């Protein structure tokens, strides 16, 4: 590691141990934090584009085959979807509280709120797994004995379920990655790694977690709610 002395005029951060966390190529803790924050936002932009492709496919096909989509969306379980949405929104709250606890230096609270976030995220994934299984049992997985009972325009209903699995699957993958990162953060937080002077990882992971939640906030109405009642009887 190249030894580097700070430029005159660039004062090191106020907290005594903050300087030790500055990587060699940064001039100050502020610069390092700024860089990380911008990096996270740019990463989230790439995520928006990543999910964007699926949303585009959804809008194109929904526009092209409204009847198939309306009747297929009735096959989703509204109650379970709504419960899961609530669970996820609560996990965003606990995540925000974890960031806040880090900012005010409450070590035990960071750990507590991260564990709560983990449990809520885990609950969401468990419920999702139950839903997937339910779809499998009812032959609602495209390409595998697919059968959309009583659906209108049945030839295009596989598209709805392909998008359902593509979108929720990609979302769940992001949740699983998130769960892994929370486990790491919990371990670090227990060691007292995060405090008012430096808690960038907690804060940036918070951004990621909220982003994943927001994706679901869009997925829920698109897959479960819209046109649910507009099925031709």
């Amino acid at each position, binding site marked *: 590691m190249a030894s580097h002395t700070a*430029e005159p005029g660039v004062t090191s951060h106020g907290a005594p141990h903050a300087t030790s966390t500055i990587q060699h190529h940064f001039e100050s803790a502020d610069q390092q934090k700024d860089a990380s924050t911008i990096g996270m936002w740019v990463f989230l932009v*790439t995520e928006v584009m990543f999910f964007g*492709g699926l949303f585009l496919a959804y809008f194109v*096909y929904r526009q092209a085959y409204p009847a198939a989509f309306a009747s297929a969306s009735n096959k989703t379980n509204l109650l379970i979807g709504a419960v899961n949405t609530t669970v996820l929104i609560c996990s965003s709250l606990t995540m925000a509280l974890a960031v806040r606890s880090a900012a005010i230096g409450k070590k035990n609270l960071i750990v507590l709120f991260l564990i709560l976030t983990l449990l809520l995220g885990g609950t969401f994934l468990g419920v999702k797994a139950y839903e997937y299984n339910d779809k499998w049992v009812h032959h609602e997985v495209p390409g595998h004995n697919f059968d959309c009972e009583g659906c209108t325009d049945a030839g295009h209903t*596989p598209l709805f379920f392909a998008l359902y699995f593509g979108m929720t699957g990609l979302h769940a993958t992001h949740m699983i990655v998130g769960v892994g990162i929370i486990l790491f953060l919990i371990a670090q937080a227990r060691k007292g790694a995060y405090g008012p002077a430096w808690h960038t990882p907690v804060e940036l992971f918070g951004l990621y977690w909220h982003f994943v939640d927001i994706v679901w906030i869009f997925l829920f109405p698109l897959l479960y709610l819209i046109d649910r009642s507009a099925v031709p009887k």
Partner: protein
Amino acid sequence: MITATPPVETKKSYLNQTEGLKSWLLTHDHKRICILYLLGVTFFFALGGIFAVLIRLELATPVGDLVESNTYNKFFTMHGIIMVFLFLIPSIPAVLGNFLIPLMIGAKDVAFPRVNLLSWYIYMIGGLFVLTALFMGGVDTGWTFYTPFSTSYSNGYVIATGLGIFIAGFSSILTGLNFIVTIHRMRAPGLTWFRLPLFVWAHYATSMIQVLGTPVVAVTLFLLVLERGLHIGFFDPAYGGDPVLFQHMFWFYSHPAVYIMILPSMGVVTEIITTFSSKKPFGYTFIAFSSVAIAVFGFIVWGHHLFVSGQSAYAGMVFSILSYVVSIPSAIKVFNWTATMYKGSVRLTTPMLYALGFIGLFTIGGLTGLFLASLGMNVHLTDTYFVIAHFHYVMVGGAIMGFLGGIHYWWPKIFGRMYHEGWSKVSAIIIFIGFNLTFFPQFILGYMGMPRRYHVYPPEFQVLNVLSSAGASILGLGYLIPFCYLLWSLKYGPIAPPNPWGATTLEWQTASPPPTENFEVTPVVTQEAYTYTSEEVVHVG
């Protein structure tokens, strides 16, 4: 001009600061990661080149005497995939950009050095997937993976290749992300946006495309893999899907990807022309913003790949007009380079030869792009060799000329050695001649109606095809010569001074090769990037 430490005689450079294979494979130094990438892209360039040789060998005669059609399909597919995704896209940004951006902005490293190393590993893993697919038997879909052929009918290893490109895409995303943050937050004191070298502007624009476009092709390939592997269909009409949607999503990235290849090259050419004309670039802000404009316009022209794919006639008209618009910022660059040389004291060094070659070839490539952007012409020229010639003039004549020019220009900085000037000039000229002989006949072939992606053709096309294959041999030779003398120079080349070309940008104000921390003391910038002290030089010529 710039207050930086004069290069002190240091024995330790980034090349020999630490030793052993491990110190390279676990390095966080952007300069060493540049070398790792250089090895990677050179390997894939050679591999892609072998497939080009096989293609041109087959096409030397009208009949399919070397391979059968299925094998030929795999040849051009592997050529395209390797060259586009594993060579052209990472070539300049990940090699030269990685090395130079921190040096040009007076930083010690990129913002996220570990992410930078990670991106190289991701790139190599993506490459391994493609190689695995290749050794299992290859892919025959063409580099465009059009559905439903790729998802339902192809006999090739579409999933392995698709995953390889999916993975390699993340390396490109991470490089772009790193550069954006680096350029925003790591600039030296006093280095304002309009004091940045234009190479940095070009890379900023490139990074925008990498960050915004690559995720879209990633998700498209993800859907392709789902459809082929699990029969969860999105694009095949048999599943209710629409293959044209695949084309839209694919080209939404893959057209801007063309600018990922050419924009960094334009940045290289700007630096070379400025230095070897010893003159400020003409219209700095125009060159800077034309890079950004190309990146922005690049995102709204993808439909010109779908003129004959069942896109509506009105969409076709809009995309046609928008495609013309891209020519404006591109032309601004060509005019500004020319104006920069005007009354400059031009030195015809090797990098300059490549830069001049770039201007000529890119102009032909760009102008033939206008032929293709016009709806009526396009119907006649779609899927002919005219298209092949057009994009090779831009990608090979443009991007690779820029890459080689940049490698020659910064070689003394990267390795601290000079190469043989005579050999390098000869090879630059051989490449220029070989390139034109290879691809100019293809314009005529395409105009006469020879379709792409066939291994047989009517006998009347043979003369032009033989010319093209002959040109390809000359071009191949031209690429081999630099490989030899550059390797030779590593050991036997004369020691390079810190600033052999009399350039003004920051990377030349430190030692050659630079120390690990780039600058002894962080430089403080007080002037624009290109301030030549003896402005009277400008008027001598």
